[in-house]
């Protein structure tokens, strides 16, 4: 820009503003009371209490076996081991320091101690990072396969066209990663061509696919000159992608919290609350007619969620798939509601940091500049094709979002802990 012979005033101000302030590091630091090792006291306290729980539970487990306890212990084990590692490193550092401060130490030992101290100090931040990651609670759906739902948003025909490309991108991604996938639903908008989606649901049938694709949930924005544009203007349209958990069939030995047929489960859908409609005309049925109409529409009455399915020739198969999608949508909505509650609780501590929901714009694909920018991690890739082919580019973007998510989680955890600390202090004087 500065090589140009002249610059308009507005552009200059804007670019100056960009250089002047860099908000991101500031954001990351907020709310973190860090000590020398890069981990806040609040988090450390939490890790200690969880480690205590781990040791008592495993002592209990040595006497009586309990599947639930064993699972909990398995969850806590990495925290305990990382904390031990961290404490070990810390204690060795303090030992070395005391050795250095001691005037009686001879010179040879002193030089060795300095070397050791340096290597320990280098290792400490990595261990602290691991500890933070171990402290993040596991996502409830992390182990599940997922459903990927694509819907065009604002932008008319162009949005439908881009939705088709997004679908192709994820199919390519799945086949590159070796995930089994099936297209459950593909609704094409009215028109001469088959490449304008009005809705698509892709099932990715690999354990843990939800965790991998979770970064993709949100609004994807495209900026390009559409094929339908006659005058060569650039359009901006949006496609929304949703990642839903796909529950395995019952009886596969999963724990009860994810078993959707158990009425006590969080994700149970009462069949009484679901209205099933077969879209067929009245009149005689059975042997009198031979109808090929197999569409099914399910309506979950309390939430008003509607799922219709017509892709398969079998009504039975359509009903099964519609139930799968309905269940996934309701489960995701319930989880989101719970998360929202948590965020509201935390808000005081976090200073009103907005949550990244599915309604937010997460990524821009700009064809004119051949770039793809993720708005959460701030990463820009100047090779759009490698992203749209579901290849390296997409992997890089997803990885950057994943580290961003981890940062956010740690931030949230620290905030939560500090809130609890404050409340604890307030409670004590009484």
């Amino acid at each position: 820009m500065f090589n140009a012979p002249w610059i308009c005033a507005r552009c200059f101000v804007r670019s100056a503003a960009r250089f002047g302030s860099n908000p991101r590091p500031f954001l990351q630091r907020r709310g973190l009371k860090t000590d020398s090792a890069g981990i806040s006291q609040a988090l450390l306290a939490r890790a200690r209490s969880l480690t205590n729980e781990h040791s008592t539970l495993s002592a209990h487990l040595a006497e009586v076996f309990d599947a639930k306890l064993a699972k909990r212990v398995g969850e806590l084990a990495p925290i305990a081991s990382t904390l031990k590692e961290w404490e070990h490193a810390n204690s060795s550092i303090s030992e070395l320091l005391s050795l250095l401060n001691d005037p009686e130490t001879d010179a040879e030992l002193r030089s060795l101690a300095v070397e050791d101290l340096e290597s320990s100090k280098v290792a400490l931040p990595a261990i602290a990072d691991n500890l933070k990651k171990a402290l993040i609670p596991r996502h409830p759906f992390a182990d599940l396969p997922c459903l990927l739902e694509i819907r065009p948003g604002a932008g008319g025909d162009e949005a439908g066209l881009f939705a088709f490309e997004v679908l192709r991108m994820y199919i390519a991604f799945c086949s590159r990663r070796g995930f089994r996938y099936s297209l459950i639903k593909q609704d094409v908008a009215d028109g001469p061509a088959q490449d304008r989606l009005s809705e698509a649901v892709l099932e990715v049938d690999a354990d843990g696919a939800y965790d991998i694709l979770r970064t993709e949930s949100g609004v994807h924005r495209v900026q390009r000159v559409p094929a339908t544009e006659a005058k060569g203007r650039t359009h901006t349209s949006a496609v929304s992608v949703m990642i839903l958990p796909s529950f395995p069939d019952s009886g596969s030995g999963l724990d009860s919290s994810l078993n959707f047929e158990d009425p006590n489960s969080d994700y149970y859908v009462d069949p009484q609350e679901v209205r099933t409609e077969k879209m067929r005309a009245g009149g005689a049925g059975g042997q009198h007619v031979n109808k090929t109409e197999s569409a099914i529409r399910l309506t979950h009455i309390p939430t008003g969620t509607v799922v219709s399915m017509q892709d398969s020739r079998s009504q039975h198969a359509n009903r099964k798939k519609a139930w799968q999608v309905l269940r996934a949508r309701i489960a995701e909505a319930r989880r989101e509601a719970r998360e929202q509650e948590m965020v509201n609780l935390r808000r005081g501590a976090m200073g009103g940091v907005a949550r990244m929901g599915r309604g937010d714009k997460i990524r821009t694909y700009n064809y004119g500049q051949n770039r793809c920018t993720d708005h959460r991690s701030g990463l820009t890739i100047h090779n759009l094709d490698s992203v749209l082919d579901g290849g390296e580019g997409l992997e890089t973007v997803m990885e950057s979002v994943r580290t961003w998510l981890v940062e956010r989680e740690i931030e949230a955890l620290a905030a939560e802990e500090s809130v609890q600390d404050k409340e604890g202090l307030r409670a004590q004087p009484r």
Partner: protein
Amino acid sequence: MPRIPSRTILDAHRQDHLLPLLLQECRSLDLAKSELGWMRNRAVSQAQSNPLRIETTKPKLHQGWRSTLRSMCRARSRGQPLQYILGDQPFGDLDILCRKEVLIPRPETETFTFHAANLISRNVVNASQSLINPHAISVRVIDLCTGTGCISLLLHALVAPHVQHLSIVGIDISTTAIKLARRNLKYNIRQGKLLDRAMADITFRKGNVLCGVPVDASNEEQALGDTPESTLRTACHLDVIISNPPYISEKSYGNGTTARSVRMYEPRIALVPPVLGDALKIPLHRQEDIFYYHILSFSFKRKVRLVMLECGDHSQGERVAALCRALAAQYLQVDDLCISIWPANDGTLNKSAHDVSEPCMVIVQRLGLGNTTTCGQPTSDSK
């Protein structure tokens, strides 16, 4: 039949030039588009799987998928059923092959078969509670007028995991149907949709349910009684008859109730019961109920535990239930009998308005012999 507005035809033509052809049979744009999609998928996969495509010189095999699709659409526009064009129909989790001269499985029959499998499983559980050895139960099913064999095969797929000794006999009068049913059995085992034991458990035989006493009765007697070694081994039998017999009356076959495509392409013998010379001897109100009379009297003779019959609509269901009561009085077996119609039509369901003209299933359960099933169970379950 209402005329299709030319606006719709124009719309359809703009989207795909084959759609107007399909509209003639489908009558709605959405359905026509779905059917076109299914046929296109089939045509493409056929073209890909045809290895002779390049080498052969025969013009017919040289066709690309586009011309295959076009000929499919033409056939469909003449009213030929989609299932005959594509050659199969999904039924539950199975794929049932279809061909001319054999009735195509209907979605209602699919629903009824699922319900029947539930009933059988529940009866097995009930019986096993009153026994010391729960594995000693054998279930024997006769599927009369089996056609493609769809009911027999789906029942096996659903019930076999719960029952160790299961034998299913499918009977039909048509040799073509029996051949097709056997082919379906092999086909579904090969596809991995049926267990391997289905080959031994399921048999299809030719037989006449009406009148032909010497041939079919002995066949059925055999079917119910010819397994002496299993009789010794097992302590309790559960005999079941399930049937989807021809139930369309002469009148509703001719007056437009029955769709044109069905009349033109599907076998009349599978739809309309024949008029027999000795019909006058049988006390029946309606000619189309003749199959039910024969099946029910057979069930009373053999004291079958569970009989499930598909009927054309609710009024026919009522007639069959009344017939069943009359026959029960005749055979002096009134006490332990429980007759119900499923799905129940008492206005509790939100769509009961046009439910009356839809098919239903008459369920006759024989109680006793330590069976604690209560009478209200099948109906209360359906709500």
